[in-house]
């Protein structure tokens, strides 16, 4: 491959050029905050549930171990233990799931200074090894078939939270009311069918 190594794995057209044939997300975001601040926020793993949509909570067990509780479709919950496999302060975090995890995954997040004082680039690589069968299907739905989509959404939410202190939402009804027939007052429903 003539293209640079920095080209993400899932942007490579030919399977032969990819490092892995597993479900993989390589996504990045630029956050207009200092690298140390972004790293510190991310390193406190209980914060992950604040911006990762599918994470119900992360319990920090000790310096390198944490327990993840992840929302799955139809009210199911998937849990696994995660082990920190590498840490370079303000630069890199890598993890893998512990023995017996239902959904094996590993990944790394790199933190780099963006050029020209534009904050911090966060580069995330997440690899899932979905099991076959029913659970495999749950995983596929959970990570939206294309795990990159979920990763991108979560990184966007992290950026919002760190830059503005909140995550933009237009969820019905409080954040964004709209007319929904099922919730409409009786007289409005009657008017609809008249």
């Amino acid at each position, binding site marked *: 491959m003539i293209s640079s190594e920095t080209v993400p794995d899932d942007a490579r057209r030919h399977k032969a050029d990819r490092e892995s044939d597993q479900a993989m997300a390589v996504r990045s975001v630029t956050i207009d905050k200092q690298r140390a601040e972004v790293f510190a926020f991310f390193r406190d793993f209980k914060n992950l549930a604040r911006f990762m949509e599918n994470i119900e909570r992360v319990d920090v067990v000790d310096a390198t171990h944490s327990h993840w509780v992840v929302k799955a479709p139809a009210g199911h919950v998937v849990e696994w233990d995660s082990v920190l496999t590498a840490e370079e302060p303000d630069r890199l975090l890598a993890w893998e799931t512990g023995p017996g995890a239902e959904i094996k995954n590993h990944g790394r997040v790199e933190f780099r200074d963006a050029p020209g004082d534009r904050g911090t680039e966060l580069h995330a690589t997440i690899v899932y090894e979905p099991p076959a069968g029913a659970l495999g299907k749950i995983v596929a739905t959970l990570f939206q078939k294309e795990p990159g989509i979920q990763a991108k959404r979560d990184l*966007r939410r992290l*950026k919002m939270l760190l*830059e503005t202190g909140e995550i933009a*939402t237009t969820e019905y009804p*409080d954040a964004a*009311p709209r*007319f929904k*027939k099922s919730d*409409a007052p009786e007289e409005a429903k009657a008017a609809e069918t008249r």
Partner: protein
Amino acid sequence: MRAVTWHGKHDVRVDTVPDPKIVNPHDIIIKTTATAICGSDLHLYDGVIPTMVSGDILGHEFMGEVVEVGPEVTNLKVGDRVVNPFTIACGQCFHCKSSFFSACENSNPADKAPMMEALYGYAGSGLFGYSHMMGGYAGGQAEYVRIPFGNVGPIKIPEGLDDEQVLFLSDIFPTAYQAAENCNIQKGDTIAIWGMGPVGQLCVKSAFLLGAEQVIAIDHRGPRLEMAKASGAEAINFEEVKVNPALQEMTGGRGPDHCIDCVGLEAHGWSVDNVWDFVKTTLKLSFDRPHVLRQAIIACKPGGTLSIPGVYGGLLDKVPFGAAFGKGLTFKMGQTNMHKYLAPLLERIQKGEIDPGFIISHRLDLESAPEGYKNFHDNQDEWTKVVLRPN
């Protein structure tokens, strides 16, 4: 509360919907006192903007009284009277800090932004009442509105100015002003402006405010051209006059220095290219009808600017790019960077340099909104601008 809702092409209703609530710390809720129907709302009315959902609340030009503030709001308090910009900006991201507010990176929710990224390769800022790819925010043609980033967007209106003087700070006055400013008008310049709707009218005023020598207004509706003439513009009715030869001769053979397209994606008229575009659009082969853009490229003086505040949504066909290239034209376009203009334009209104309220033709209560949409769409000679009064 009562709100104006979209239910499909040419189907606008007034429904009872839930009240909005404070959900984020920088939110405010306002009780709407005045809200207008925008020309770009007619694109929604015509069903040409994708990702609308039946039941969505319309409206992005609105103002009102603050009735509730989130815990992190420091610039406003309950009881303040505010005008709200139609684009939502966080004020904290790289683009906001560069005054490129229309590309705010943090106001289009993470579950909505990918729609726009897939279509356009970027996700712009959230907009009020303007489709789900633009964020899915509820619009302002309603009794109450939740406004995010209360410290950054809404501007407090001082005593002594009435609603109709300041309402258009919410969109069309800054939009028109930015379009004129994008032309970087120099002494002696002639500006040609296509489309004498409300933005076009305010664009005529803005071009003069910024020092234009001559403004030429192009449209086919008599009353609208008369209004532009009253602001000091020369008028070309394209049904009576061949536009490009007229522009050449009215500028000593030079052509207009800069051209402004205040029409956008649904240009009227029955020239050959426009009929062809209409056929394609009707058959869903193409989105936009860029007749004005083509004409403006051919009209514009070499080295000039083509400033485009008119909304485009999709693909353009048969744009004379060779002429644009040969003339070395500069194209300036995009959603308005609203937050940059609110304070300076409020000051111009306060000083009496301009009163944008002159474009209002009709005032209705909220319940009459469907009638307002229909007439603004069908009877554009008489209906130049509709203001709704929800409370």
